[in-house]
């Protein structure tokens, strides 16, 4: 024991770090801030450390070459002892990281912590959010599989829409004319050197500001922030009703961070690593590329926006969002901090959460994508086929072989791109059905060139049978016997 102390003293005599560290750890914080609401920032820092360690461990095996990356992931998954586990922890760590960062941001927003004098802390935080998203996207690329390959194509297509500079941005992003070796190498450099370097620097500044300016006090309705007297009031608060961070605040941070690490490890153990899916061979086109979970909302947005609005929304939307986030502490730098007195702030959070949640949920089902194998893999329910005439059965065959099933469902089986056809005969008369099939419209291709008259007749005869037994099919009222000329 004495020896350890002696060695410690020897180092401290030279480094002289122990007293500044002790001062930092024991700095005064307002009593109410030793709260379970104040643990997300430190949890994000802990997960960052976990990502750094597991990232370095993966880099021991991973080969950042377009020709070899996928194979090296297979080696990690199947050959290297516990390689699958390290991959799983890194993958789940990234999911938890994004979730914690978002929760941290919501908490900071609702508690008014971005207000004077913590504007710069918020701005650095916004930069950190962008970097975290950047790490998520580049990380998805390093898992160099089919999703990564086609995801890069989507990224390039979005870049190409930038006016004038677009095509050059694409070449810069890809590192050449196509998605290939140079592309993976530069995403590796971004994911492993550039963004983590910036991330560590920005996290350092972010933390420094938290220490210099003090942690945000617990917001009380009516305790209004004013630039003129805030500093004095905060100083008074921390010194009349303050406690040292160590040990009053830190134990909650430590327990929460530990719990998060345990959750990540448990998810990694139970669910295993993410992918890789199929080989990144562009010749394998039997693929249905999907983005990772945290970009599903964007996938939904890109499918649901009207085509003409897509480019403006894609290019201007993020810029507006960024400006709003960065400018927030300047147009709302003073005033009430408590969310109880800031209904618009609460509504903004609720609206954003519902929007993101809805888009993510929609993208999970992707009703806008045709079911690519429905014509061979999705059956027509037997109830739509029993007791039908030969022509109607022939029509069902046309329905199946002409890929109608890829976009239209019957009995909830098949694509959801177009409307379900279980009761189509109630909605459209035979003439309207013929017109719709041959001319298309309303987002349906025209089949006029691809169906002969016999096929059209059969198909419409089949569609005419699709109505509930208690409801008769639609009829053209002008053609009823009474008024027919």
């Amino acid at each position: 024991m004495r020896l350890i102390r002696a060695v410690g003293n020897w180092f401290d005599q030279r480094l002289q770090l122990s007293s500044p560290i002790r001062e930092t750890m024991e700095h005064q914080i307002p009593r109410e801030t030793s709260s379970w609401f104040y643990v997300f920032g430190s949890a994000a820092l802990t997960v960052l450390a976990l990502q750094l360690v597991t990232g370095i461990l993966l880099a021991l095996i991973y080969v950042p070459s377009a020709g070899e990356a996928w194979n090296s992931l297979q080696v990690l998954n199947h050959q290297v002892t516990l390689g699958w586990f390290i991959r799983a922890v890194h993958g789940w760590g990234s999911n938890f990281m994004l979730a914690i960062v978002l929760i941290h941001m919501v908490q900071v927003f609702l508690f008014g912590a971005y207000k004077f004098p913590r504007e710069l802390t918020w701005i650095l935080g916004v930069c950190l959010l962008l970097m975290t998203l950047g790490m998520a996207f580049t990380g998805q690329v390093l898992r160099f599989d089919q999703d990564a390959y086609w995801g890069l194509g989507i990224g390039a297509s979005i870049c190409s829409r930038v006016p004038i500079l677009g095509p050059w941005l694409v070449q810069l992003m890809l590192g050449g004319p196509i998605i290939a070796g140079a592309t993976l190498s530069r995403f590796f450099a971004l994911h492993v050197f550039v963004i983590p370097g910036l991330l560590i620097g920005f996290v350092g500044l972010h933390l420094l500001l938290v220490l210099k300016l003090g942690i945000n006090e617990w917001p009380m309705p009516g305790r209004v922030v004013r630039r003129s007297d805030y500093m004095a009031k905060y100083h008074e608060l921390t010194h009349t009703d303050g406690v040292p961070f160590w040990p009053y605040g830190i134990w909650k941070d430590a327990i929460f961070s530990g719990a998060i690490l345990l959750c990540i490890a448990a998810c990694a153990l139970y669910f295993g690593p993410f992918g890789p899916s199929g080989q990144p061979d562009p010749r394998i086109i039997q693929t249905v590329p999907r983005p990772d979970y945290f970009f599903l909302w964007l996938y939904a947005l890109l499918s649901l926006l009207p085509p003409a609005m897509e480019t403006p929304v894609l290019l201007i939307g993020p810029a507006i969002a960024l400006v709003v986030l960065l400018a927030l502490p300047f147009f709302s730098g003073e005033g009430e901090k408590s969310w109880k007195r800031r209904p618009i702030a609460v509504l903004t959070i609720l609206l954003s959460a519902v929007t993101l949640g809805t888009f993510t949920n929609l993208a999970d089902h992707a009703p806008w994508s045709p079911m690519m194998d429905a014509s061979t893999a999705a059956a027509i329910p037997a109830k739509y086929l029993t007791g039908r005439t030969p022509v109607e059965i022939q029509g069902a065959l046309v329905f199946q072989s002409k890929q109608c099933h890829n976009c239209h469902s019957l009995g909830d089986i098949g694509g959801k791109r177009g409307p379900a056809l279980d009761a189509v005969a109630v909605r459209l008369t035979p003439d309207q059905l013929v017109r719709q099939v041959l001319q298309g419209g309303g987002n349906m291709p025209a089949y006029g060139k691809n169906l002969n008259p016999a096929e059209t007749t059969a198909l419409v005869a089949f569609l005419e049978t699709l109505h509930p037994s208690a409801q008769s099919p639609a009829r053209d009222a002008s053609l009823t016997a009474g008024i027919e000329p």
Partner: protein
Amino acid sequence: MSDVTRRQAVLKIAMLFNGVVGFLLAIPIVGYLFSPVNRGRKNGYASWVSLGSVDEFPAGQTRLATFRNPISTATDGETADLPCWVRNVDGSRFQVFAINCAHLGCPVRWFPQSQLFMCPCHGGVYYADGSRASGPPERGLFEYAFRVAGGKLQIRAGELPTPGIAANKTLIQIERTPPCA
């Protein structure tokens, strides 16, 4: 006093010297970073590549063909092996479509029964001649210029087709050589 100004002068010279050195170093660094763009502008990425014998593409059919991208490196692996759709319109006229959907670049699949290209991502659909049928794409499929030389079908390829304006104008253009070629 004169000593202070001398110090300041020396410091200024030192900073100027470092500025000049930094600028000189920045030239090759920026040149290196932007090399993908430069190369594209000077000589262009596109060149003629063969898709195989014309006989492999029967009249009236649309078939998948593959080619090695004309510009590729040793580390590209399979990513430089690119597919495309070849439509032999009537035995002498061809259309060669990029695999990439004109919306966001996902691989479109050909369905011969319904004579449609469908995209698995956001639901873009195209007719047999590549024109837009439905969904989010704002235009038809990208087409490669083609020619027939020595019984081989060749296309002018080399760059990922994207909806960007310049790419459409300079690299992917509909340019059909006469059928007797």
